[in-house]
């Protein structure tokens, strides 16, 4: 069976930490970081390798800070 793996790149300096991406992710890949960015926002970060590259997080991100990659293996 074909399997897909994905990864996201978050532009943390543009992230406002709104958390809208968090419930959008079906695999609980995203959480807010303990650290803050230059604007003082706790930014979104990935916390595991379960990303499938479905892009749900990216399409709900109001600030368009998420880039998504996906590979079929």
């Amino acid at each position, binding site marked *: 069976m074909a399997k897909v793996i994905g990864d996201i790149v978050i532009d943390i300096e543009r992230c406002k930490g709104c958390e809208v991406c968090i419930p959008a992710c079906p695999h609980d890949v995203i959480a807010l970081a303990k650290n803050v960015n230059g604007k003082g926002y706790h930014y979104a970060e990935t916390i595991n390798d379960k990303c499938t590259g479905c892009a749900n997080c990216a399409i709900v991100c*109001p600030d368009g800070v998420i880039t998504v990659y996906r590979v079929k293996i």
Partner: protein
Amino acid sequence: MEHTLTKEEIRQEKNLVYKKTNVMTDNILSYCPGCGHGTAHRILAEVIEEMDIQDITIGVDPVGCSVLAYNFFNLDMQQAAHGRAPALATAIKRLFPEKFVFTYQGDGDLAAIGTAETIHACNRGENITIIFINNGIYGMTGGQMAPTTLPGMKSSTSPYGRDVQMMGNPLKITELVAQLPGTCFVTRQAVHTPSTVRRAKRAIRLAFEYQSKNMGLSFIEIVSNCNSGWKMTPRQSNEWMEANMLPFYPLGDIKVPEK
């Protein structure tokens, strides 16, 4: 077999499935964290990129939170006086019938001060697309009551909740414009979840396609949040929107072109 690709191997151009469209500029959005404006901007920009019409699209932005939308769309844009965007768009489209023209307006702009311009552009059947963001509040001026504020909903000018006896009823202007012969496509969408974003984007795409066929005015309401005005976190505001706004402003097509 366990996959063993490194992040660097995954993050290759050939594996790219989603990145910010070039029809948005790199300017940081002036909207509050979690505001639906950013998402609505982005899907509109994506449609323009996918249709390859950036060089023949002119946008008109309103007064309100999205007054600075021209900083975020990588498009030729005009900034209208409060409520007047459909009048500007009417003239632009009539002077350039072959170009794509849209307005992007909030509820106060479109459904209060600009009611006349909205209704008459719709009724004349101008071949334009109106994107109408309804978050039930005046965001930019500090959370005052809007024409679309729900009964009982608190705002800075209805601090004890909207009393419809005193303050009048919320205006369902989308249902209203659907009654007018000049509109060809009237729909209500949202942008707070992956599936609603996908549907809203499809609606915008359809609207632009109808515009290219001179079918009349397309009117897309996007029910959205205002976490600052509603005094909630972004996630709470989306949940509150589902529980309170969507029953009053149900999602879905209200008028579609006849086949």
